[in-house]
């Protein structure tokens, strides 16, 4: 019964989506043709999802490779190369593939190609970069030419969202066989654009694929240029050298928003940047001290003055748009209130010392804080700002800003010798499991997982384990809500902001919809109004 219902649901969802897309038709006549020039900070490492899961590569290959499912701009699962699915057993999902789809090299997309893609990624040597993102995914099995089974090692609740990720594009087995290692620099998929050229550290060029199965792309070509300096990117937009800027300068956005020649596309993203607290290290093992720290931070001032509208408030440990998200109402539970912070510290036995820093039993309230600069937007700045805010309530923070490689090593290491750390966490598959399991399960302390805070709560452990193994999405949601309720009382994070995905373009660039997931830069419907 479940299988039939699921299949029906997907068909209905597909129909609704198609209807929505149709009704959102252009008010003005779309124009075909033209070259879109995009400037962004770095060059990709590779255009093969097996080797590259970060944004610079994803932005490009997202338009060339497609997976079985995809996530639309409203964070709903949509069919892509698969047209329907059926849950055969808790560890097996059967997908029916879209017929008559061709790869850029002319070979047909079929179940064998899907199996090839997953085998290559999960069982290849070395395995794909994204294999770790895949959770319990174990592989694909061919049923017939247009039917394929995706198999997991154990029941895996997030399976559909995982398959809808940006890096799950199906690749052409023929092309991989022919190109070998060079496939990484010239991928072949089924997307609306195909690869043309890649000049390292300079540009990547893709062009329209005329035999695309869906609506053909309107643009002739897209050029992705590398411009590392933020100021130079903005100038390029102003001089017309660029049509679209990725990672624009927050300080210049207000002026751009007012200017009719430019459009600022923005939406709330799925990354939360936070200051993490080491709950296993005194004095942060006392929940009252942690709560005092939360009250000491004026998050609104940071959002207004440092992020300047380029980020949204962090309502909890997840971002809205992530399945399982609950608004933890942090602004109500922990408003900016210095008096309350001091009162909580007093409750915990801390009294002001002669130099203004709180002390207890001869010990000063001095915290060591590890941060990087430039890994996440304004990470160094928010660390410095919060350092000053802590000083106002008598907490001294000794900040150590190191380069990312060193920070990464320590945060991922055991033991962790700092009280605090600045980090950003993106829920890559937009499913709460991805964050809550890795960050808060007691057995996920580094190096196994990402529970740098060393948070341990038996009830939370049970909840996230249960939610991971259930395929009942409404049940999972309820479990995650409970987890977030518990976390809200024990806070081991100071969430600072939720990213906003922001892209600045010339107003002449139309048909572009910004996606909450930073990797999903979809240009299939974009066109230039010349």
């Amino acid at each position: 019964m479940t299988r039939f219902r699921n299949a029906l649901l997907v068909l209905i969802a597909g129909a609704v989506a198609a209807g929505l897309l149709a009704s959102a038709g252009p008010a003005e006549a779309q124009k075909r043709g033209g070259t879109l020039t995009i400037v962004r900070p770095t060059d990709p490492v590779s255009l093969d999802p097996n080797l590259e899961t970060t944004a610079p590569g994803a932005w490009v290959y997202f338009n060339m490779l497609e997976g079985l499912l995809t996530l639309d701009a409203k964070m709903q699962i949509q069919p892509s190369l698969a047209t329907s699915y059926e849950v055969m057993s808790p560890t097996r999902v059967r997908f029916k593939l879209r017929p008559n789809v061709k790869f850029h090299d002319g070979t047909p997309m079929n179940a064998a190609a899907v199996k090839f893609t997953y085998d290559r990624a999960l069982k290849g040597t070395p395995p794909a970069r994204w294999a770790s993102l895949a959770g319990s995914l174990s592989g694909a099995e061919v049923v017939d030419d247009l039917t394929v089974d995706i198999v997991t090692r154990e029941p895996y609740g997030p399976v559909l969202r995982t398959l809808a990720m940006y890096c799950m594009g199906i690749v052409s087995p023929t092309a991989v066989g022919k190109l070998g290692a060079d496939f990484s620099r010239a991928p072949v998929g089924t997307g609306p654009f195909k690869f043309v050229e890649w000049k390292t550290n300079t540009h990547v060029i893709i062009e329209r694929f005329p035999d695309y199965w869906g609506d053909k792309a309107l643009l002739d070509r897209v050029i992705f240029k590398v411009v590392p300096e933020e100021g130079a990117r903005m100038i390029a937009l102003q001089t017309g050298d660029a049509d679209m800027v990725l990672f624009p300068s927050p300080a210049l956005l207000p002026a751009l928003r007012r200017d009719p020649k430019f459009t600022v596309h923005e939406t709330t993203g799925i990354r939360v940047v936070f200051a993490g607290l080491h709950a296993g290290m005194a004095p942060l093992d006392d929940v009252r001290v942690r709560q005092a720290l939360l009250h000491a931070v004026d998050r609104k001032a940071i959002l207004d003055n440092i992020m300047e509208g380029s980020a949204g408030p962090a309502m909890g440990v997840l971002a809205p748009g992530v399945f399982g998200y609950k608004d933890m109402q942090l602004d109500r539970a922990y408003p900016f209130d210095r008096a309350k912070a001091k009162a909580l510290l007093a409750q915990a036995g801390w009294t002001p010392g002669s130099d203004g820093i709180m002390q207890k039993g001869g010990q000063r309230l001095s915290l060591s804080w590890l941060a990087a600069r430039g890994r996440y937007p304004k990470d160094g700045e928010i660390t410095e700002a919060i350092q000053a805010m802590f000083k106002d309530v008598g907490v001294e923070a000794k900040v150590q800003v190191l380069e990312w490689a060193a920070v990464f090593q320590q945060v991922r290491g055991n033991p962790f010798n700092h009280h605090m750390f600045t980090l950003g966490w993106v829920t890559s598959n937009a499913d709460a499991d991805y964050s809550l399991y890795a960050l808060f399960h007691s057995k996920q302390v580094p190096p196994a997982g990402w529970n740098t805070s060393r948070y341990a709560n038996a009830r939370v452990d049970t909840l996230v384990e249960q939610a991971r193994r259930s395929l009942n999405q409404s049940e999972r949601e309820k479990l995650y809500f409970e987890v977030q309720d518990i976390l809200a009382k024990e806070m081991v994070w100071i969430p600072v902001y939720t990213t906003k995905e922001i892209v600045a373009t010339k107003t002449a660039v139309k048909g572009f919809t910004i996606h909450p997931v930073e990797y999903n830069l979809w240009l299939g419907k974009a066109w230039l109004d010349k």
Partner: protein
Amino acid sequence: MLTFLVRRLMLAVPVLLGVVFVVMLTVELIPGDAVALMLGEHATPEAVAKLRDYLGLDKPMLVRYVEYVGRVARGDLGRSIQQNRPVLDELADVWPATLELTVAALLIAAVVGVLAGLVSAVWPTSLFDAVARIGSLFGLSMPVFWTGLVLIVVFAFWLSWLPVGGAGTPAHLVLPAVTLALPSVAMVARMTRSSVLDVLREDYVRTARAKGVAERLVVSKHALRNAAIPILTLLGLQAGQLMGGAVLTETVFAWPGLGRLIVKAIFARDYVLVQGAVLVFAVAFVLINLAVDLAYGVLDPRVSRQG
């Protein structure tokens, strides 16, 4: 002469071996694991271990060093950890652009610097001297991204004479080369001024003047020739620094050069790429030093040739 050359080239080998060893050792000792960084936040420890094993990164350092040297002797610089791409290919992508920028900047530094220094020395304490000295100090003290961005705003934005960034046409080369050359111009000008001033005060120069030799000849034949050694030393060193230290200029102007490549590789702990780049770099250095030492001999025969 020939023995000198051969001897120096042979001595270059231990230098190269030494550099590779020191690089490998350093990357080994500093925190940060290339594979963990590459696989990123999502990777499980098993995935990291598997990839490290596949890439042979867990072999003892000395073993890796010997293997590496063996490969280099056969002309193979290995594959970068990040892209699994031959290091030679990665270097070939950036080498031409780097040479272009370095040579252009060096030319500007040499020509403008020496001329300015010369004029300053011949007319010391003049207005030109004061302006030149303060002006060159300006170029030396303001950081590259400040001067670079200001130049972009003025020439690419307000005046629209030159492109914003990137490489390709000679027009693209102008701003980055000038920006990169500014600190060197200052140094060369100052050094030239200082050296030439010294020489101009020598008694033999006074003698030459007293004998009625034309000022021009005095300056060019005697002064410059004798002042050349420290200037040449400086230029040789500048060449090396310009090559590898252009990372900030490359960043501001989106110039696809060696500087950015090396920095990126260091941050990613991609030691194979770093070694390859440094090796090529070291070879260039050795050759430049050799050239400077040869020039010493030509300019001042009293300097006996050393190893």
